């Protein structure tokens, strides 16, 4: 599934942009390449570097390694078992940002994988076939356990079946039912919690040789909840005019720690505390978000975006919006790892397993199309958006199927016209800068005319 950027390690490509920058409102577009970084950005970088180093030395230190997916991830549980999590989707998007996914995808196709299937899977398979070198340039350890918590995407099943055949390791399956009619029933919660108790925890304990302490787990979950409070505050700040953040391109950085290996840690709590402080300061100064080429001088358009970004041309893609003064004030992609803005918090339910069940069930793509339409419509209204753009991905049936119908529904419910573009996640063959630029510019022109005549 789509996921947050956790780039910014020593050997990674230059980060698309600092989270914020103490700058005046006047910004030169092609600012100096030496960008000033915020403390939170540095902090995230340091967290990542430390984590990848831990992973690289997992064999020596005896730490067990669990591969898992971002949506519905059980990071606190993995931590409570003393293991380290690896998130193949993150590896894939990082490969794309470092311009390596093209080679990996082609390698997978050379090995017989079809051009039609999800490029995340192919990127991962290709990376594995090419030595499994992680974003820091160090080899990633093989999994001791594949934790197949599949929320909102059937391709996850196929993906880990493929990996299991490669590694021959233990695999644990967690079936998370779909919220087809927009509700979570008690049966669904208990089904998930029971699988955690009878399938996931025993397998985790088997590979790590360590008992999971449920009290410790509950404490980790409460810590997650506190970080989630701060994240929601940051995302909500986009309701202000001008918005101090970009909730899509910038947002993927903001959700990085909470969507992946860091949830439940003190580092993570500290990161979000600092981030909130930075955004609050920007808000007080009435500053816009920091975009690829500096702080946005004038917020001309407020946009909601549905769908993950393209990773191979992330900066170019973002730049199209920046050049037009378009700020993304809310996005669905930053909810694939949890809809915290709708009220969910880890640790809310005192039973840690039910709390994790609620989390898994609540991720964005586990919601019905109707619920997705309602959420997007509420974003358009609550964030005062002028328009909404759907970035439809060739790779991802989970996100993409139904988006054209959703677009018409959101238009109907909000009276705001939608824009539709098509790209891919990590396969650069499906990204055309000229075409996307053209479409976004025409769309924004139309929005400008609407605003002028309103």
């Amino acid at each position, binding site marked *: 599934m789509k996921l947050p950027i956790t780039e910014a390690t020593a050997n990674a490509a230059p980060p698309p942009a600092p989270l914020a920058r103490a700058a005046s409102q006047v910004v030169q577009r092609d600012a100096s390449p030496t960008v000033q970084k915020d403390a939170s950005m540095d902090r995230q970088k340091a967290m990542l570097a430390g984590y990848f180093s831990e992973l690289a030395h997992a064999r020596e230190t005896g730490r067990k390694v669990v591969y898992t997916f971002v949506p519905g991830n059980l990071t606190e549980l993995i931590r409570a078992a003393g293991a380290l999590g690896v998130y193949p989707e993150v590896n894939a998007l990082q490969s794309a940002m470092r311009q390596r996914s093209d080679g990996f995808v082609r390698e997978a196709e050379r090995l017989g994988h*079809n051009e039609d299937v999800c490029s995340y*899977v192919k990127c991962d398979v290709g990376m594995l076939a090419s030595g499994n070198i992680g974003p820091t340039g160090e080899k990633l350890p093989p999994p001791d356990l594949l934790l197949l918590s599949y929320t909102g*995407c059937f391709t996850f099943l196929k993906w880990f079946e493929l990996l299991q055949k490669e590694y021959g390791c233990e695999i644990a399956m967690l079936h998370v*039912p779909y919220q087809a009619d927009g509700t979570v029933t008690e*049966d669904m919660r208990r089904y998930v919690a029971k699988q955690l108790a*009878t399938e996931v925890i025993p397998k985790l304990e088997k590979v790590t040789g360590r008992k999971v302490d449920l009290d410790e787990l509950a404490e980790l979950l409460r810590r997650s909840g506190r970080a989630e409070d701060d994240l929601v505050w940051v995302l909500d700040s986009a309701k202000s005019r001008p918005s101090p953040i970009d909730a899509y391109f910038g947002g993927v950085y903001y959700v990085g720690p909470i969507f992946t290996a860091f949830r439940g840690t003190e580092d993570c709590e500290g990161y979000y505390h600092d981030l909130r402080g930075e955004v609050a300061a920007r808000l007080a100064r009435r500053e816009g978000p920091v975009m690829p080429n500096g702080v946005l001088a004038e917020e001309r358009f407020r946009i909601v975006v549905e769908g993950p970004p393209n990773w191979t041309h992330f900066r170019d893609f973002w730049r199209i919006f920046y050049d037009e003064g378009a700020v993304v004030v809310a996005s669905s992609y930053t909810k694939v790892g949890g809809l915290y803005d709708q009220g969910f918090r880890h640790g809310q339910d005192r039973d840690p397993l039910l709390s994790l069940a609620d989390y898994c069930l609540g991720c964005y793509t586990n919601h019905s199309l109707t619920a997705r339409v309602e959420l997007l419509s509420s974003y358009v209204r609550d964030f005062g958006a002028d328009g909404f753009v759907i970035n439809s991905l*060739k790779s991802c049936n989970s996100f993409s199927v*139904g988006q*054209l*119908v959703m677009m018409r529904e959101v238009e109907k419910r909000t009276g705001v016209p939608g824009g539709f573009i098509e790209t891919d996640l990590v396969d650069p063959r499906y990204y055309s800068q000229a075409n996307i630029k053209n479409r976004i510019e025409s769309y924004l022109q139309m929005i400008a005319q609407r605003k002028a005549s309103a």
Partner: protein
Amino acid sequence: MSSNVTEADEIVRRCEALYADLSLSAVKSWQASHPGRPAIGLLPIYVPRELVHASGALPVSILGGGDQIDIVKGDACFQSYICHLPRSTVELGLQGRLEALDGFVFPSTCDVIRNLSGIWQLLFPGKYVRYLDLPQAMDPSTGGEFYRRDLEALGAELGRLPGGNAPTTESLATSVRLYEENRRALATLRQLRAEAPWLVPLDESYLVVRAGAVLDVEEHTELVRAYAAAATRRRRKAEDRIRVVIAGAFCEQPPLGLLRTIERSGCYVVDDDLFLGARWIQPTEAEDRGDPLTSLALAYLNRSVVASTRYQPDGLRGEDLVRQVREKRADGVIFAAPSFCDPALLDQPPLQKALGEASIPFITFKYAENTGQFQAIREQAGTFSDSIKLWGEG
């Protein structure tokens, strides 16, 4: 032409008419003879039809519009990189051709069918739409319990539809028995085809199985038996063709012309996974006197076919395909998958690896339900057949 041949041909002709009837006349005539009773559309691949039947409704399998419908509005709902089945299904709905159906059940086959349930909710707000989350956790105490409770809820909902009745232990036991008989009849036909494919051409057997999409189960069982008996009496000689298994066509169905092309290019198709939902539960001789709802749930856990849409680690599907090839004495495999079908296409590399390790040859192509050009496939299948014959002789 003997009278027996005519009988088989007659049955096939009837089945072809049912296949071509996209406006569901057969369903409407069933409704005319069962006034007030609902008909429920079931999306691929598997929904326990027994439960729908036990509620007094007619289960109707929806398998897309094939190559018989022009897509006008359906394309406006789907991007080009999504398989074809949902767009023709939406087209059928928007053209009013599914109006005879009182509700729809969408099983958890893949992200496309899952999201199609949402599209249906948005496009047809008045209709009963139900998503059925088939468990992937196959332990009776987790997936089994969850699924049984969900089936119970589904049964109750069907009972609340106008003209429906909540299934009772008795009605469900009867339905379970009737579908078990149907599965046994289908298994006999499948076996006959493996033994004497010259008597049971692929297009015919497919049409006969496919008739079960719209016919009442008892009528269909009779039809399958009658066809199998009539086909057995045919006087036809085996031709020099290779024996192949088709894999990957379990959901979106290839057009009839494509099936005919394969067999006319020097192949006997001795097994396939077309319309897999019809034989999803493997038949059993064991008599089950337990609670029928529990039987239904356990049948899913214990007797489901090996399928690309079910979680199966440990290379089980590869082993299963090799076993299928061996049991059916096939010379090779034709991977025929719908374009953009993630479950079928993601499975191909490991399946091909398993075949490679077992020295079983294969070819691969993609199709859409409305593919109209078969020349390339004819050549591919012909070359495959020739090479196997040559290789076999060598």
